């Protein structure tokens, strides 16, 4: 699905846990997330901290969307 959206020219931040799959399939902007059942969350954390973590990851995704890339790029820093 990522590629079909990219094909019409809209940049996509693919937020996923299994980065090698995303790389194989061909997403261009990849943002590693926490875990399969809770990519944007961590149920071990208290609610406020979890939301702060979510915000950090979303901000990373937005940064990826603002970054020119010339090929597949994993935004893991």
């Amino acid at each position, binding site marked *: 699905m990522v*590629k079909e959206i990219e*094909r019409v020219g809209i940049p996509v931040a693919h937020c*996923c846990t299994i980065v090698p799959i995303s790389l194989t399939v061909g997403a261009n902007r990849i943002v590693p997330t926490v875990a399969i*059942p*809770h990519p944007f969350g961590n*149920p071990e954390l208290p609610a406020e901290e979890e939301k702060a973590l*979510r915000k950090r990851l979303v901000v990373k995704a937005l940064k990826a*969307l603002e970054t020119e890339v010339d090929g*597949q790029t994993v935004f893991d820093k």
Partner: protein
Amino acid sequence: MTVRIVHYINQFFGQIGGEEKADIVPKVKEGPVGPGTAIAAAFKGQGEVVATVICGDGYFNENLAAATDEVIGMIEKYNPDLVIAGPAFNAGRYGVACGTVCKEVAERLGIPVVTGMYPENPGVEMFTKYTYIIETGDSAAAMRKAIPDIVKFAKKLVNKEPIGGPEEEGYIPRGLRRNYFAKVRGSQRAVDMLVKKLYEEDFVTEYPMPSFDRVEPPKAVVDITRATVALVTSGGIVPKNNPDHIEASSASKFGKYDIEGVYDLTPENFETAHGGYDPVYANKDADRVLPVDVLRDLEKEGKIGKLHRYCYSTVGNGTSVSNAKAFAEKFAQELVKDGVQAVILTST
């Protein structure tokens, strides 16, 4: 006991004419015509082409139902043991005609059928599940090889011999899976293959991976603080009670949900339909998959232009690549029309 064969061919191989005769209606001739003679010869007295049914490729394709009925009616009268169609090589309309004839004969008359086509013939994808299609070259120049290949296979069908895989029998792979007991167990075969790979020796995969194409990365968003950002997911986040009944596995559809006025996903309003991961966390707080709450905050803070009012969701669990592609092709158009400039897509 000689095998009674009826052969189906088009106007060209039936020696009636070329494109200008593509509109001829079905007709039957006793005995073999054109390539049918080679078929008869290849059977070496064990088979006889008792009749040849000839139909224009144009007529057949433009009158599918009627032409099929007429042709099957003609074939039936000869009470054959076997029907051979074509070969059609790379001719599309001929491939559709041959495929249709084989499919209908098999279903209506219950007798063995076989045809031959070049792998790129559109008739292959349409009919490979209904009939064996022997692989041929792409033009009539390949007739000399096609006929013996077809006849060799046809004999096996008629004699009800066990049919092996595509490589050994010469037919185009049908996408059908058949279980069998291998002599060597899987773990051994896997290790053997890995060792070959490590020593850079040739090996043959047991399961070819699909090849994934690449897309040019779209230009980055110039100013995200003014951009409309949309949320998409394959994590199956749907409104409570899954009103569109998106399947937990092998989704046949995607949902488009209006999150206007929604600032937080809660167990009261959203859940996950995905059957491939532990749903507990997403059901307690679907923001963990579709981060609506955070994007609303960022919207308020002016860090993004706005969160698009529609989000798109499907279940990625076991859903075919071709379905997922089709869903996204459809809603990508809507995203463009709605002026969306960036997408955050969550996979689970």
